């Protein structure tokens, strides 16, 4: 994190503004390894045969001793950072006795016993339809299953339950008291039993998406029941408009809500204090407009007139952002010669400053491409980059407010603070919960709901 003490004590941290190759951190969820095939290394080798594609298993022996079960686990444990995990087996041949089982076991599982016959394991058995979870005796659970049936096993992280399905219908659930990684497990025990496994490579018979959606909705419904202080959304939106200097919008907004909302002084009693944000509203609006339209020169001019202290130090981060944006605009306009001149005059001095190095490098790299928009540094030509600079200028202007109590306030709007708190709480809660379940993603929330209801 960069601490660049610009005037006014406002620290602009470039990473705060998301500067850099726009990486979506939504992919964090997909970093977990997902079971894809059966583990042939630790399976009970002598009693079963796993096909070459590692997705089928057959009992090859005739022995039916209780310690001669043909058990095989998936190549890795079920991923946890999601609402549910699910896999299915198809019973190709129930063999002599149909003693097929599907379930979950831990890494230490004794690989010659049916899942569920040992502690810390779960198994739904086809011959008796019972659920075994750590004891020799099973519990009544569901129907038996045999050749031609598709049986599914899953983990519901939201409710902390395991669940099983038969031919697309939910059979039942059981509480998951085993903490720690669980391996999808399949077992065969009598002559000629043969089972195919599907870890998601093929569509599932059971509608797992609908199931996951249902879980999410359950949680959503619970959350909807919570009550909010009156009009709080309205004030947060208003704060947002004030903070970033969207003056025209703010005026329209205030006009339209005159009839329905209490006047501002009343609201202030209730804790809505926007004195700080009203500061320099007109100026901030103009500056944002200029930068959004690409007119960096005028923005610089206005800043020198109105807030010279901000641009006083020519090697400050804010000056870098403005100069780099000017450079980008020149590249956008195709004025490459001018761009080079400008870079030599204004950008060269930033080369020594470590935190700015990546951004600077990316900017200069624009020159290397005939069609910079299509390059890996093309993101700089996006409108969002102008937004980054506009937000930085906005923060700097706010920081010149002599009445500013907390300098951090100029960096983040209330809305942003609330969203960060929400994300951090969800992540922490998940982490304290064995990392199980979904985290919060604003992006996903914004995408959802389109014609869903």
């Amino acid at each position, binding site marked *: 994190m960069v601490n660049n003490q610009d005037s006014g004590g406002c620290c602009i941290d470039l990473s705060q503004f998301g500067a850099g190759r726009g990486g979506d951190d939504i992919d964090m969820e997909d970093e977990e390894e997902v079971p894809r095939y059966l583990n042939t290394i630790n399976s009970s080798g002598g009693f079963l045969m796993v096909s070459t594609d590692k997705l089928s298993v057959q009992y090859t022996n005739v022995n039916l001793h209780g310690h001669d079960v043909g058990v095989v686990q998936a190549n890795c444990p079920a991923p946890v950072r999601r609402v549910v995990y699910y896999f299915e087996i198809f019973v190709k041949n129930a063999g002599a006795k149909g003693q097929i089982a599907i379930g979950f076991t831990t890494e230490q599982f004794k690989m010659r016993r049916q899942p569920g016959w040992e502690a810390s394991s779960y198994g739904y058995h086809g011959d008796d339809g019972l659920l075994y979870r750590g004891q020799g005796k099973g519990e009544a659970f569901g129907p038996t299953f045999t050749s031609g049936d598709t049986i599914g096993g899953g983990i519901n992280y939201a409710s902390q339950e395991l669940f099983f399905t038969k031919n697309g219908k939910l059979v039942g659930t059981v509480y998951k008291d085993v903490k720690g990684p669980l391996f999808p497990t399949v077992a065969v025990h009598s002559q000629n039993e043969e089972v195919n496994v599907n870890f998601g490579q093929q569509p599932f018979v059971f509608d797992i998406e609908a199931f996951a959606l249902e879980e999410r909705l359950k949680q959503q419904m619970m*959350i*909807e029941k919570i009550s909010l202080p009156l009009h709080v*959304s309205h004030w947060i*939106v208003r704060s947002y408009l004030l903070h970033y200097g969207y003056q025209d919008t703010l005026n329209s907004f205030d006009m339209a809500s005159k009839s329905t909302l209490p006047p501002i002084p009343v609201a202030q009693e209730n804790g809505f204090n926007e004195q700080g944000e009203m500061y320099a509203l007109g100026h901030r609006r103009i500056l944002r407009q200029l930068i959004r339209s690409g007119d960096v020169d005028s923005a610089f001019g206005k800043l020198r007139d109105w807030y010279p202290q901000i641009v006083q130090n020519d090697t400050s981060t804010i000056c870098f952002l403005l100069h780099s944006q000017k450079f980008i605009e020149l590249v956008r306009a195709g004025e490459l010669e001018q761009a080079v001149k400008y870079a030599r005059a204004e950008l060269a001095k930033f080369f020594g400053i470590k935190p700015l190095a990546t951004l600077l490098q990316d900017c200069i790299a624009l020159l290397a491409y005939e069609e910079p928009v299509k390059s890996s540094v093309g993101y700089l030509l996006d409108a969002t980059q102008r937004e980054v600079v506009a937000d930085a200028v906005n923060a700097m202007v706010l920081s010149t407010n002599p009445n500013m109590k907390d300098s951090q306030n100029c960096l983040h709007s209330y809305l942003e603070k*609330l969203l*960060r708190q*929400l994300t951090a709480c969800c992540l*922490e809660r998940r982490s*304290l919960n064995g990392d199980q379940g979904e985290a919060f993603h604003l992006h996903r929330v914004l995408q959802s709901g*389109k014609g869903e209801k």
Partner: protein
Amino acid sequence: MSLFWIVMGQLAAADEEMSTSKKVITREEWEKKLNDVKVKKEDMNKLVMNFLVTEGYVEAAEKFRMESGTEPDIDLATITDRMAVKKAVQCGNVEDAIEKVNDLNPEILDTNPQLFFHLQQQRLIELIRNGKVEEALEFAQEELAPRGEENQSFLEELERTVALLAFEDVSNCPVGELLDISQRLKTASEVNAAILTSQSHEKDPKLPSLLKMLIWAQNQLDEKAVYPRINNLSTAALEDPAI
């Protein structure tokens, strides 16, 4: 003797559970976690636009589009139409409102018998309010009674509304609340929601849900940790954990 040990074991377990302390997260640690969260300006803009659009602030949405470059998720023209309907109901011009809704999308009233009944009921209320007794009776008998026959709850509503006619001094009658402006607002809100739904748009803005989620997430985390909370949504101020 073994019973003794069982009890001792249970007492020990209970004791352990009570002294299982929650994880304590200091202000500094928490702020670091907060700083690791990146919220895209673009997403926040979308959230605000979604609020303006769903709540019907057409002009503000238009201005916001210009000032921020955020595209609204529905056609702003449809908001104007929707707001016109809402306003018509709020002013008591129900006939006008019904016409406008049908112009917008004739299926809305066709597929929403309850909404249509409430609009007709509002029409009746307005006739009564304006003292047009004969017209009101005719309207009730011709338009509303047939609907009442199909549906028990409609019939009850109809009877309640007609009861208004029986009183000289409506401010004191038991169903006087029907003449209140809140009744108009209720109907207006119902129409607004129906139009939004017909446009495959969620009828509620996303922001309040997120705020509720924040409250919920903090409550959930309270069970396992002590950390700086935001107790006042309107100031978003972090309050240090009480130790």
